[in-house]
């Protein structure tokens, strides 16, 4: 028999190493991007339009475009996702139909993002005649985020203790009043956290906006939701592969801004979760 203590030590070491491998790439990505991109980031870079064929100037329209897209996606997907989660969790019984719906949601989460892009092109751009526009892009990103919103919302609703619902109903509240005044307020932090994390992912996606909204070069701000716009991830793709002789630090600067935007959204989610968790004690 070999020494079990030594076996355990080796096992711990290997497990630790595996965990370390998660941290290393994240750290390297952040460090490299900051190192190479930070010199490019200044006020002009953040507030000016692209100039000289995107080799100089700033990325302001792309930043604003991404903000518009994410905002549009929230407006579209949050209500639908939360309402669907309420239906599935509070009203729907366990039957064939709801099992199909749940299966569909799981599969929706597994659809590759480029397929969402094609779907958005077919449905919103062509069929609904929105054209390549902010509204088409927002809807596409929204649909892509729906499974995450629904899943996290359901988890949040489920975590509200049954006893709260029971008391509320016993006081004569209807099912809807119970959901509206007791369940939702207590599930809100979980719902918001999940939504923001989902949108953070969507904000960085290129494929879904490729055919539905993103403009190759549009050095001004969009005037309406039916116009195209530049967006950070697509802009990054363009200046990295489509435009020759772009300074490396401009590319990395753009990546840094995108990364900062996504990390900022995650940070907001973490703060929300932390604040609410401190309050709740059941």
């Amino acid at each position, binding site marked *: 028999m070999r020494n079990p203590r030594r076996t355990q030590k080796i096992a711990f070491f290997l497990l630790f190493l595996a965990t370390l491998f998660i941290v290393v790439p994240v750290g390297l990505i952040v460090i490299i991007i900051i190192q190479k991109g930070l010199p490019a980031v200044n006020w002009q870079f953040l507030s000016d339009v692209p100039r000289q064929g995107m080799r100089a100037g700033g990325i302001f329209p792309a930043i604003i475009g991404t903000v518009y897209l994410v905002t549009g996606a929230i407006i579209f997907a949050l209500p639908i996702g939360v309402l669907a989660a309420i239906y599935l969790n509070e009203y729907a019984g366990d039957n064939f139909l709801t099992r199909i719906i749940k299966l569909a949601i799981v599969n929706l989460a597994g659809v590759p993002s480029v397929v969402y892009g094609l779907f958005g092109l077919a449905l919103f751009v062509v069929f609904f005649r929105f054209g390549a526009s902010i509204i088409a892009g927002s809807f596409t990103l929204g649909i892509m985020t729906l499974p995450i919103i629904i899943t996290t919302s359901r988890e949040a609703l489920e975590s509200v203790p049954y006893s709260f619902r*029971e*008391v*509320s109903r016993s006081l*004569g*509240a209807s099912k809807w009043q119970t959901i509206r005044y007791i369940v939702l307020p207590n599930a809100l932090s979980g719902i918001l956290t999940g939504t923001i994390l989902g949108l953070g992912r969507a904000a960085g996606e290129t494929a879904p906006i490729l055919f539905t909204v993103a403009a190759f070069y549009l050095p001004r701000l969009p005037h309406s939701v039916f116009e195209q716009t530049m967006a950070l991830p697509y802009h990054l793709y363009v200046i990295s592969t489509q435009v020759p002789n772009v300074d490396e630090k401009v590319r990395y600067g753009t990546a840094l801004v995108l990364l900062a935007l996504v990390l900022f959204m995650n940070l907001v989610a973490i703060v929300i979760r932390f604040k609410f968790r401190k309050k*709740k004690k059941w």
Partner: protein
Amino acid sequence: MDNISAIEISGLDLWYGDFHALKNIRAGFRERIITAIIGPSGCGKSTLLRVLNRMNDLVEGVRMSGHVLMKQEDIIGEAVDVTGLRKKVGMVFQRPNPFPLSIYENIVFGPRIHANMRRHELDDIVEKSLRSVLLWEELKDKLNRSALDLSLEQKQRLCIARLTAVKPDILLMDEPCSTLDPQSTQRIEELMRELKKDYTIIIVTHNMQQAARISDETGFMLLGELIEFGPTEHVFTSPDDRRTEDYITGRYG
């Protein structure tokens, strides 16, 4: 004591799916007294209690037949206004379960749901309700504190206050003291004696001493049947049924 009946039950049967949980129950609960329902775990006493405010409706696969009359109205059946019923028949649960809101918000939850009220009306209700459970002096300056910071006993009192705020006639109590220490239990029992002046109280309890201490009438249940029902003294000192005697003397349960 010749109080009128608050609730008349006759021929009541209840099934959870295939399980026959209540068998041909017949009983009359009189107004403004405390009636205790005792019996071993799983005998159906909580189920019987939850028939009276139709909380069993929340369980899937429940079927009921028979009659439960409150003020000449049968509360069994599809057409019954369950919301109205639950306003009249409130329930205190085993674990004190205030909402994660302030003390004030906990109490006004019911009234707000049932009517549009002005601030000063709500303030009145809060004071009255807290007075009815003898918490007003303790808590009047802390109404905006979270109800979750109260002691267990205070929480249970608050839950009772939350009930009295919707002005029910009947209070159902499902083992209201089982999570409390003996001193708190004693004080809640005193409160119940106080409350029976205004409310009809039906309490389900595991604790036979508690039933003997506070109730005027007692029902003993076993395996879904109401074996014996009558004045507490009678049930505890000279029960008619052998099984009641066995339970009370501790042969099972």
